[in-house]
Every structure is written in C-alpha cells, then in structure tokens.
C-alpha cells in the first residue's frame, strides 16, 4: 500500500512536471510572438487601410434570443464599426419576447423573399428582412433552434467570403475588424483568425464602447481578468508558434465562409460550438492537405461581461469542460494521429491529457496526498512543498500574463489597476483555482445531461456595470 501511494505521488509529480514544462514552452514561445504582433500592430497605417477598398468584405453574424432590451443598442454599435465593407445578419431565434418588434421598429424593416440556398440545414425560417434605413442590415426570423442553429442560418444568408460570429452582448472595439483582417492583408492563407476577448466588468462603457478600461474590484471578476489575459496573451500566442490553435473564441472569431460551409457549419448539438467548429476545421483542412493557418492576433479586442456570482461561473465552467470532454471524445481519432500534423500530435493530446484530465489528476493528487499523510507515507514538509510549487507555478504563469499585457498593450493605465491585477494573479491559487477544479470535475459526471441551447449567463448590462 505504501509503495502504491509513493508511486502514485511520483506519477502525479511527473504529470505536473510534464504539463508545466509544456506551459513553460508556451510561455517562451509567446515572447517572440507578442513582440512581432505588437510591432505589426504599431506600424499599421490605419488611415490608409480605411481608405483602401482592398479590405475583404465581412458578414457579421449576430444570433439573438430574448434580447428585446439590448438588441437595438447592440446592433447600432455593430453598425458603427470602422470598416468599409461589411453586412450584419441578425438572427432572431424564435425569441419569446419582442426582439423582432424592437428590430423592426428601430431599423424600419421590410420583408424580402429568401433567395439563397439553405446550404446548412436549419430550423424553418419565418421571414427575412432588410432595413430601409441601414442597408448593411439583414434580419432573419426563425423557429427556435439554439445558438449554433442561428449562426448557421446567418451563414446561409451572408453574402461575403468572411464571417464573424458576435454575441449580441459583446462590445467590439471600433477598429477591431480592421485589425482582425491584418493576416489577410499580409497575404497569409488564413482559415480563421481570433482576437482577444477582455473582461468588461468594471470598465466605463459609453454608447456601446469601452471608454476606460478598468480592473474590477470584485475578487471573482478580477481573477477572471487575469485568467482571460493568461488564456489569450500567452496561451493562444504560444499556440500560434506551435501551429495548433484549437480555440477561436465564439464571441470574436473571423472564419472563411467556404471552409465553414464545407464542414457543415456549427454543430447544433455541440456543447461548446466554437471549440467544436475549430477542431472540425483543422480535421477537414488537414485531411485534405490544404495549406492554412488559424492564428490568434492579440490587438483586436472585444469586451464581454463575465459572471460575478459563483453559481453562474460554476455553470459556465462546467459547460466549457463538458464541451472539451465531448470534443476530445468525438475527435479521438485525431489523437496522436500524424495525418493531422501538429494538431494531431501536439494540440489534441495537450487538450486531452493536459486540459481535460488535469482536474481529475489534481483531485486524485489531493486525495492520495491526504491518504499518504494519514498513513505516514508522505511526510508533511514534502506535501507542503509540493503544494507550494504547484501554486507558485500557477502564480508565475498568471504574473507572466500580466507582464505581457504591461509590455505590449497596456490597456489598464492606472497604477491601482496594475496593483489589483498583480494581487488577483497572486490570489487566484487560493480557493478560486480549487473551485475551478471542482466545477470541471463535476462536468465528467454530468456529461449525459442537458444539451446547450443558449447560454444562461445572468448579466448586469454594460452601461450599469460601472455604476
């Protein structure tokens, strides 16, 4: 028994050593990447680009469900983006409130016949509208079918070769689309490109735009600011260099429409539709030996509200983990499969054994250490040292994300915000991380549960968030 506990402890130690070494690799790779991206972002001549008709036309997909109160402001904000050639397709997914009436009233809609083919099957369309006042706007009214189904309906209706899905409650910075198209202007073979999603809680929002970026005072949203910085500024930048970005945020990602159509659009039954879409995109393009890139670029920014209550946060994280487990299981054929190149050999294994299994291993580690301590097999200093190292490493990664933010984009100008960022990076490991592990662990036991249709995020609203 003692041998078993000792061996298990050693195995856990090696697991975390390997996992953390990989994180260290991502960390190192993120340095040249953010440097290059920052240089390109700083040297871009936006005036010249804005005047150029070279920018690829974009269809912005806006799925909406029961957004009666906010839909007019959201769509108006999207219609004022600094981009020359785009259209906005809003999908009213059988809302139970007056979302469609609000749109009809605000934008003077008139019905037009549906003339495009239903390339991706969706729930029946009730009507299609254009606006007399805003020619960039198309509104689809359809039976309720969930977010993925709505996005598919919008993709069918879109005219342009690039599509970007935007949540009705996400604030896109005015020049974000322009920045997001940079890889296309650099002539790269882009299949999809993602931008940064930042936390809007605590920020000052006026007329649908973040005018003053602040770090919230609350512990929960504050730690999520650090989490988002870590996920975007070094996680995804590091993956750029490894060629295997598996996640392009559903709240802010630009895709080539022909590729999305080729893989059948969003999967209506998937739990996390953005992860599922990108994995399928990789699988499709790799199996057909198409040369492509799915990069992340950090300077285009969209702001989103994050949960401020443990209950909502737990639900969100559990759903993300369920989505990850489902995706890994569904696409297990890609695991260690050289046919899928670096995606099959590095990205998918990392997400399977690093991201997906980490909560299981961590809880198992806590358990076995407790048993070992009780039986006297593991001595107390060793256990404390182990925990110290594990938490210290977490702090290092979070602080590194803060460093990257500080040396590159510096959205948080006030010293108070910086202090809070550092503080939250330190505090994350004390309680929050363990809660996260528990929520993610619960996902394994609720896999057969309800399917995701629309997120059930409880929002305070942007304009009220700072009051």
């Amino acid at each position, binding site marked *: 028994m003692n041998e078993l506990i000792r061996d298990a402890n*050693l195995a856990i*130690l090696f697991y975390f050593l390997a996992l953390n070494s990989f994180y260290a690799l991502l960390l190192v790779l993120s340095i040249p990447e953010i440097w290059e991206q920052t*240089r*390109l972002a700083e*040297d871009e*001549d936006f*005036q*010249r680009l804005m005047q*150029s*008709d*070279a*920018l*690829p036309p974009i269809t912005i997909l806006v799925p909406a469900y029961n957004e009666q109160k906010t839909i007019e402001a959201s769509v108006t904000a999207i219609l004022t983006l600094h981009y020359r050639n785009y259209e906005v397709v809003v999908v009213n997914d059988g809302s139970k409130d007056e979302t469609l009436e609000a749109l009809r009233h605000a934008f003077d809609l*008139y019905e*037009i*016949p549906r*003339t*495009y083919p239903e390339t991706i099957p969706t729930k029946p369309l009730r009507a299609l509208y254009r*606006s*007399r*006042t805003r*020619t*960039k706007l198309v509104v689809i009214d359809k039976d309720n079918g969930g977010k993925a189904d709505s996005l598919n309906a919008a993709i069918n209706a879109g005219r342009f070769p690039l599509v970007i899905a935007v949540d009705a409650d996400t604030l896109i910075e005015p020049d974000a689309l322009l920045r997001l*198209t940079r890889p*296309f*202007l*650099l*002539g*790269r*073979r882009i299949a999809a490109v993602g931008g940064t999603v930042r936390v809007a809680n605590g920020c000052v929002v006026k007329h649908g735009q973040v005018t003053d970026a602040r770090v919230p005072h609350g512990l929960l949203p504050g730690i999520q600011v650090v989490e988002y910085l870590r996920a975007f500024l070094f996680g995804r930048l590091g993956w750029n260099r490894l060629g295997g970005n598996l996640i392009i945020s559903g709240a802010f990602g630009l895709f080539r429409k022909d590729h999305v159509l080729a893989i059948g659009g969003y999967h209506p039954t998937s739990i996390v539709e953005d992860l599922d879409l990108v994995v399928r995109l990789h699988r499709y393009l790799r199996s057909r030996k198409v040369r492509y890139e799915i990069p992340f670029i950090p300077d285009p920014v969209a702001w989103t509200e994050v949960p401020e209550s443990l209950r909502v946060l737990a639900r969100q994280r559990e759903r993300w983990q369920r989505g990850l487990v489902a995706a890994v299981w569904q696409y297990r054929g890609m695991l260690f499969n050289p046919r899928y190149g670096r995606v099959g050999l590095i990205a998918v294994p990392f997400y399977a054994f690093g991201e997906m299994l980490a909560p299981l291993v961590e809880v198992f580690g806590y358990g076995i250490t407790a048993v070992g301590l009780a039986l006297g097999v593991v001595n107390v*200093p*060793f256990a404390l*040292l*182990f925990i*110290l*190292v594990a938490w*210290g*490493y977490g*702090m*290092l990664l979070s*602080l*590194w994300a*803060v*460093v990257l933010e*500080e*040396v590159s984009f*510096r959205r948080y100008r006030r*010293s108070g915000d*910086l202090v809070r960022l*550092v503080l939250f990076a330190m505090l994350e490991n004390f309680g929050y991380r363990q809660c996260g592990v528990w929520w993610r662990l619960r996902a394994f036991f609720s896999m057969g549960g309800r399917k995701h249709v629309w997120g059930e995020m409880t929002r305070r609203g942007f304009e009220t968030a700072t009051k």
Partner: protein
Amino acid sequence: MTARHFLAVVALVQGVLLAALLMLIVLNRWFRLRRRARVHPRRLAVEGVMQRWALGQADVRVVLAQLARLPVSLAVDAIVSWSARVPGDRWRQLASALEREWWARMVRSNSNSARWWKRLETARFLSVAATPADTARVLKLLRDPHPAVHIAAVATLERVENAALATAALERLPHLAPTVSAYYAGMLRRSRAVVVQLLLTRLARADDPALARLAEFAARLQEPALREALTALARHRDPEVRTQVARALGAFPHPASIAALTPLAADARWPVRAQAARSLGMLADPVSLPLLRAALRDPDWWVRMRTGLALTRFGPSGRNALLDAEVGADQNARDMARLVLGLSPQALAEFAA
C-alpha cells in the same frame, strides 16, 4: 537528489522568478512613465510646429529640428500621420529636406537590414518621404520577402510616379493573395500613365492566367483607353474574366460597351449577368431598357436585384418599367419591383455605392 530536494530547488527558482517578474512589472511601468514624461512634450512640439508649417507660418528647418528631437520610430510615425494632411508640393519640400537629416539617412540605410521591422520602418518612411534617389531602395523593399514590408513599400506609389516602381508592383500584383492584390491595385491607380500601357500589353494576352486579376484591376482604373481591350475579353472562356469585364464596362459610356454587355446580360453564369445588369444601369442608355425589363424575370435573385436597382437609374422610364413589373405576370419580377420601389433614396444610394 531526492524528490524533496528537487522540489525545494524548484520552489526556490520559482521564488526568484516571481520576484523578478514583480520587479519587471514595476520597472517597466516606471520606465514607460519616465519616457512618456520626456517624449510627450516633444511630440506635442512636433504637432504644433507641423501645424504651423502646414499653414505656412513656420520654416521647414524648425520642423526638422523638432523631428530630430524625437526617437526615430516616433519621428517616422509623426511624418506618416502628417503626410495625409499636408498638400503635395509642400510635403515634397519636407521630403527633400529630410534627405540631409542624420536620422532619415539612418532610416534609409536600414533598407538593407537583416531585421524585418527595421526594413518595415524604412518602407513606411519612404512611403511618404521617398525622392527619385530612393528608387533602387524602394524597388528592393517591393521585393521584400516579409509581406508587411512590401505592402508598406507599395504605398510609395501614392506619392511617387515612377515607371520602374509601377512596373515592379504590377508584375507582382496578379501573384499576390486577393486582398493584397486589391491593395496594390489601389496604390497603382496613381501611376495611371505607366500602368495603362502595361495593362494594354497584358490584357492582349488571352491565355494569361492572371487575366482575371488584371481585368479586375483594369475595372478599378476606369480608364477609357482600356475600354477596347476589355470589350475584346467579353467572350473569354473564363467566367471570372467575363465578370470583371461586365463590371468594368459600366464605367465606359460608349455604344461598344452596350454591345459587349448585351451578350453578357444573358451569360450562363449569374455573377456575370448581375454585373452586366449593374453596368447597364450605370450607362443608363434607353437602348438597354428592354433587356433590363427581361432581366427582371431572371431566375437568380441577385440578378433581379441588380436589374431593379439599375432601372432606378433610368429616371421616369426605368420607374415605369418597375411599375409595370409590379403588376405584371411574373411573380419574381413583381416581388423585386415592389422591393426596389419601396427602397428609400438613402438605401438606393448605398446599394449603388
């Protein structure tokens, strides 16, 4: 070494790294604040003096003196942002004065740098401050392997008319990704005389694989001298070439354009028909009214839409055609006529743009 020793070493290293990162954060912010405090007044001074110079109230030497006080990258940023706000002749005066500045010479010499960001800085600088003496340098930057560099370099054509540069850019244009190619096209429009001659030669080669791209570019130029070359391509086997020709001919009000557009309006491919309808609307010749009346019954919605919009450009006769279609026998034409007649003037203008 036991596992415990190993962990102790790792913990120690982590502690040192944590402290180093905290120091880095603090020092970085401190340095930035200090740098900003030092540089910001100089930037404001450059803004002020540039403004006075642009209004003719300051001497160019004062501008040069203030620019030299800025870090080089900020000086380049300043002149790039001001280049769009100062009239051409006056700007050329500054560009030639910059040739003698030490920092501008340094930026120029970076065109041979092994580091792409240095070459990018040079390309940005030359895009607004190149003189005839910089031709070889810009040519080299136009052939740069880093896309950001050659894209910045091609912007030089906005200000410098030079046959060698225009030829190099046009040669590269069809081989670039569509977005980059469109950007090049935008820049090449300024060197019209050279480009038109080159295009006439290239468009005459019917088997040129880059023909669709070149026809697209020719369409953007709207140059009357290219009309004949474009009408000659109206029966080209590549539908993309026909689409571009159909699009281009709308800019040439000439009977030959109508004659070339007539078969294109009945093309087997809907994008060709849609562009032909749009162009016929732009030309608004009453001869093409019957053709457009018929096109309003096209099986493709976009062709009908473009036709409906085209008819609105014919004045009362086009409106009558739409009113007739609104009560006509064809359901598709009825729906489209109703839709177009219901559009606001603003919507019509936006569709036409």
